[in-house]
């Protein structure tokens, strides 16, 4: 059961990575990066590493993404499109 679940999670994070590659909008790229982080933090739970999982969830998925979004908002204020 756990095997199945973790396999799904692995597929999810890989898919998230591909979304990060191919999405046209920077914001969705960043959010999928956050999702990847969240997925990885889920995998840490399966890997018997709750400490790491909590830290990754709070820092990698939460705060990192938040700072990212702040930065994106800042660079978009100039009125240019998000890419290039």
């Amino acid at each position: 059961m756990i095997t199945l679940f973790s396999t799904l999670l692995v597929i999810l994070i890989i898919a998230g990575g591909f979304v990060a590659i191919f999405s046209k909008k920077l914001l969705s790229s960043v959010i999928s990066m956050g999702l990847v982080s969240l997925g990885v933090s889920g995998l840490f739970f399966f890997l018997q590493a709750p400490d790491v999982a909590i830290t990754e969830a709070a820092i990698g998925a939460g705060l990192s993404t938040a700072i990212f979004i702040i930065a994106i908002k800042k660079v978009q204020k100039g009125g240019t499109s998000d890419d290039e």
Partner: protein
Amino acid sequence: MIDFLQNWIYLTGAMALVGIGLYIVLTNTNILRIIVGLNIVDSGTNLFIVTIAWHPKSVMPIYTATNNLVVDGHVVAADPLPQSLVLTAIVIGLGTTALALAIAVKIYQKYGTLDVRKIKEEDK
């Protein structure tokens, strides 16, 4: 057998993240996307480290009333050392990301672009 495969699955996931991250770094010219790529590489590295600390039969390395870490003189917990290293690596990754984003924001203010190809100066 299934346990064996499981380890490979995690490794595949980790390596896929590293590959995806590097690919993003190598193909995108937008600074923020490059930082996204570096972050994904970091995630993949962390996953890799936690994976090699883990054995399909291992338990989490926390003493509780029900969780016994040592059975017959053999440790059955997941290896806590790599996990503690990953804790460190995550925090360091956050620090690098924050600094990179700050630099990126400042670059945008000064250069008016986020394209790495345009961020260079002629010699004074």
